[in-house]
């Protein structure tokens, strides 16, 4: 029997699950290998669990979602998160440093209608996660590689090294060294193909922290480059700002201020 695959969405922009649809021909081939039984964005009929493989996009930001993710976990044999929201809380985790009541009041005329948690948290803070695919959005090739690996019954692997390795493999000119521009590449996980340096700009960390990183040295490097403390803090407190090493480093910079 073909494995049953489901795609769930929590707080997110849909960009990661869109990568399934962006896969084009490959999506059709995947459909020959697995039954995509739950995928509201692409399919009208939603079949109930259990699922062999669940992809979860988005972060947990509401009380209802905090309950729903537990149900999803219970229904799923193997749970893979897709994207920065699910792995790190996403850009919406910036609320974690703010007063949510103020946010709510400031922006909705009737804040009482809005049900939200004061934090946006990664899926792994709520349930056991079997594998995380990083990126904002995730890379299509990585998504397919992980899926293929699981179809073979093998634990997936993705590189955990820095963007710099991909950057040099692509023959980009380093923006730090040639232009003195800040770049998060040395502390960011590879996966995008060093897109930003290739586009002539510094990396802003959308793939989250590399597994080997040295945040202290990196913060010192930013300071050497003349990046102001609050600017450095903002750079780290970005798309993946709530993830541990970056959070701690940004908090340290904020405390110095």
């Amino acid at each position: 029997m073909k494995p049953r695959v489901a795609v769930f969405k929590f707080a997110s922009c849909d960009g990661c699950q869109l990568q399934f649809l962006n896969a084009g021909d490959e999506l059709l081939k995947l459909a020959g290998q697995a039954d995509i039984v739950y995928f509201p964005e692409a399919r009208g009929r939603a079949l109930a669990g259990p699922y062999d493989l669940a992809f979860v996009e988005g972060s947990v930001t509401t009380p209802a979602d905090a309950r729903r993710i537990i149900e999803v976990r219970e229904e799923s044999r193997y749970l893979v998160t897709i994207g920065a929201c699910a792995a790190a809380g996403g850009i919406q985790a910036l609320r974690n440093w703010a007063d949510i009541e103020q946010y709510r009041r400031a922006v909705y005329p009737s804040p009482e209608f809005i049900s939200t948690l004061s934090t946006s948290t990664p899926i792994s803070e709520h349930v056991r996660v079997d594998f995380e695919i990083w990126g904002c959005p995730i890379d299509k090739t990585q998504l397919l590689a992980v899926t293929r690996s699981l179809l073979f019954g093998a634990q997936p692997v993705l590189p955990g090294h820095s963007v710099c390795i991909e950057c040099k493999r692509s023959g980009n000119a380093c923006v730090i060294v040639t232009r003195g521009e800040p770049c998060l590449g040395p502390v960011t996980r590879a996966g995008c193909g060093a897109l930003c340096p290739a586009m002539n700009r510094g990396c802003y960390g959308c793939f989250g922290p590399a597994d080997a990183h040295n945040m202290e040295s990196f913060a010192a490097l930013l300071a050497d480059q003349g990046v102001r403390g609050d600017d450095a803090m903002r750079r780290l407190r970005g798309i993946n700002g709530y993830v541990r090493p970056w959070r701690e480093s940004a908090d340290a910079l904020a405390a110095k201020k």
Partner: protein
Amino acid sequence: MNEATRMPKAALDNLIAILGREGYRVMGPVARDGTVAFDEIRSAADLPVGIRDAQEAGRYRLAPGIDGEIFGVVNGAGSLKPHFFAPAEPLLEIRRERRGFKANEIASAAPPHAFIGVRACDLAALAIQDRIFLHDRFRDAHYELRRKDAFFVAVDCTRSAPTCFCVSMKTGPRATAGFDLALTELPGGFVARPGSPAGEAMIVKLGLSAAGGADEAAARALIDECARGMGRRMDTADLPRLLYDEAENPRWREVAARCLSCANCTMVCPTCFCHTVIDQTEIDGNMSRRVRKWDSCFSLEHAHIHGINLRPKIHDRYRQWLTHKLASWIDQFGSSGCVGCGRCITWCPAGIDLTEEVAAIRASAGKG
């Protein structure tokens, strides 16, 4: 052989044209995004004429240099390495069959390359990669295919970057081996000398005539002056012993505090050869490519074996890189793994300088 000839600057276009006609893809340093890298050229105008590089630890800038100077830029991050040992390339294509699978080699069918403007250190580095990929117990077919028909036009360094130390590593500034033709750039033209029968033939094709003694002397003088003014130096005396004995020197921890573990040094190093091989499998599971990609001893996966990481700390990894490069390389391949090109110094975002690290370890040796 080895007779010096005079080559007018205008003859460079002729050289490029002849190589092109002979079926080579002609490559030269091309400026792009504030640095240079070997890329395809159609004429000398594609080279960074009148431009020089300013290099320091962690810093690289191109700036206007001397009018008409063709090879004013010493080097950029890109060496010859990516053109022989590709940053990423498929090695095998494995197709599933009714019962089992069949593995086929993927042959790379690129035309031979001719490189113009290769520095002595890079030729030395290529010879070192040859040791690894061609002259060891096994030969790498992909490397060999690209290597065997390449043509090299070397350029002697008459100017070094402040990060260079080829004199210490005995690889430059004058090209001594591994080239077909070597040029020394003088203000009014080149002194050209052949390094192979193909180079001699090329001199004939270019119709060059013997250089006068004055030109040769001027060329020598420029190269000697470059050697004397070399920006950095490294004391290589008994280096292997020093680094082996100092495996627990506190300096490793000190440098590890600055090291980002980003792997840039290993990526730009023209001799580093670590690579990983991964499967890239089609989603239907019928075909898998085994793809080789540059890897680095700075990545955590590099020393992962099941259940343990053998070099978990940045100081373990920094020590591995430096000790391998400068010491155990000699045990393994009979030469240092460093040619003194200075790239790892320039392209380290944190500006870590191996010559400084070696000096610090030497200075504190035995005191740890």
